[in-house]
């Protein structure tokens, strides 16, 4: 290869795509999010009647054939199709013209918390009902959690670094943070980065029911996800995918790309405490936020908005609020904090990426999406949670929190350019 691009050390976002329970593509979901609409409804992808939780945030009117060739569309796992859709939207949005040299320096990092759970469910069924000779040769390729990343690279001929992080519900945020570092150190000029999840099926819903982690407010789906409200009773599952185009700043500037924002901070930590429960004092969460603030070289009072992890579980929300107080000190009383999971549900491994898209749109438009269903705010969640109504505010620097089973904590900081 000829001269490689020399990295500027700054990484900006020049494209984004997301497929969410509130719509496909920002033009469809963003107005609904600002209007405080809920994407939660009775589950239709399976018959939910045997399960204690029968509601979720499904991506409606999604047809894999709109995004993949016919043969693939018919058989790929839904998690791959959603990831490909978000990746393709993002790539189109960034407006880059791909040449052979750039393709070698254009990577993909799209993770999934769980992977191809539809394939897992269907093929396990076949194994026990019909025997091993009827297992599909596509079981392995469509079940493995790195295939959304692989498939996007194959479809668009992107030949740079390709990895898929798997850190449960912090997967999407880890992908963005790790891809940011790949570009920063000069191993790629551009990266598609994000997460995809499609686990609203029998085994997925049944297992989270078994863990007693989800809201059972089946009769009133749109108010079931209620982070920071005193009557919250668990998270509501969502599905979807979010992908950002990350790009070296000088490269983006040279081609006249539109820039949504710059990634400036990335913090990570482990609770080192329990497989599913967060640390009671939010120890790991606050150290991830502190790390992100440190490497972004900003102080807590400079953060205008936090898109919280805020899953609507009784303990999780309180621990995150404690962690924010711990990391922010007195600045916690001024920062706007909202949980968009109140509207989308918890899209698990896609959440960190979908919510990064929301953060960038919030900065672009100077408006914070609300936390809906806050009827009586939990006194233990004593922050400005932007209840129920979107709020206009000048947003220059924003933070996005994501935490996952296993005790993973991830914090991203983005700023306006």
């Amino acid at each position, binding site marked *: 290869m000829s001269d490689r691009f020399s990295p500027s050390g700054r990484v900006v976002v020049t494209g984004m795509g997301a497929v969410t329970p509130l719509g496909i593509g920002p033009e469809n979901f963003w107005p609904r999010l600002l209007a405080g609409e809920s994407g939660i409804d009775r589950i239709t992808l399976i018959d939910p009647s045997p399960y204690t939780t029968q509601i979720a945030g499904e991506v409606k009117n999604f047809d894999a054939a709109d995004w993949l060739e016919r*043969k693939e569309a018919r058989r790929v796992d839904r998690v791959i199709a959603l990831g490909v859709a978000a990746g393709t939207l993002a790539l189109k949005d960034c407006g880059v013209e791909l040449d052979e040299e750039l393709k070698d320096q254009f990577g993909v990092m799209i993770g999934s918390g769980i992977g191809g759970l539809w394939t897992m469910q269907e093929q396990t069924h076949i194994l026990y009902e019909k025997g091993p000779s*009827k297992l599909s*040769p*596509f079981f392995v390729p469509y079940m493995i959690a790195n295939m959304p990343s692989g498939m996007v690279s194959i479809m668009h001929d992107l030949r740079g670094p390709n990895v898929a992080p798997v850190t449960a519900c912090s997967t999407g945020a880890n992908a963005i943070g790790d891809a940011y570092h790949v570009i920063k150190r000069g191993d790629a000029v551009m990266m598609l980065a994000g997460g995809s999840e499609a686990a609203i099926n029998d085994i997925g819903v049944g297992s989270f029911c078994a863990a007693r982690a989800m809201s059972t407010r089946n009769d009133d789906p749109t108010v079931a996800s209620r982070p920071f409200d005193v009557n919250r009773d668990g998270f509501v599952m969502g599905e979807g995918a979010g992908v950002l185009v990350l790009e070296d700043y000088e490269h983006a500037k040279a081609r006249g790309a539109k820039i949504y924002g710059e990634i400036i901070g990335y913090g990570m930590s482990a609770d080192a405490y329990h497989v599913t429960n967060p640390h009671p004092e939010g120890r790991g969460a606050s150290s991830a936020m502190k790390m992100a603030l440190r490497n972004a070289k900003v102080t807590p009072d400079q953060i205008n908005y936090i898109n919280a992890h805020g899953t609507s579980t009784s303990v999780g929300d309180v621990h995150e609020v404690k962690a924010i107080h711990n990391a922010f000190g007195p600045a916690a009383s001024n920062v706007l904090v909202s949980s968009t999971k109140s509207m989308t549900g918890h899209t698990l491994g896609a959440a960190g990426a979908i919510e990064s898209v929301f953060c960038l749109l919030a900065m672009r438009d100077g408006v914070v999406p609300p936390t809906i269903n806050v009827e009586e705010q939990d006194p233990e969640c004593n922050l400005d949670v932007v209840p129920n109504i979107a709020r206009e505010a000048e947003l220059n620097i924003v933070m996005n929190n994501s935490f996952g089973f296993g005790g993973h904590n991830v914090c991203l900081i983005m700023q306006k350019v």
Partner: protein
Amino acid sequence: MSQDILNRVKKVTVEELGVKEEEVVTSASFTEDLGADSLDVVELVMAFEDEFGIDIPDEEVGDIKTVEKAVDYISKKLG
């Protein structure tokens, strides 16, 4: 060649390989003309087994490289 078997082989092939019906001519090779890779062939053979209620042992898969050969093979199997 049985017209019924041919029609069903065509139908399964169109579905499994995502090709157009007019492409599935009798002389067409699944891998060379219809774009099937090695995994596609395994899945296609399983779909034939389901459609016709037969078993196709791995060592005989090599005998059904084209649409015509598949029809012949299946006809023989069905007696």
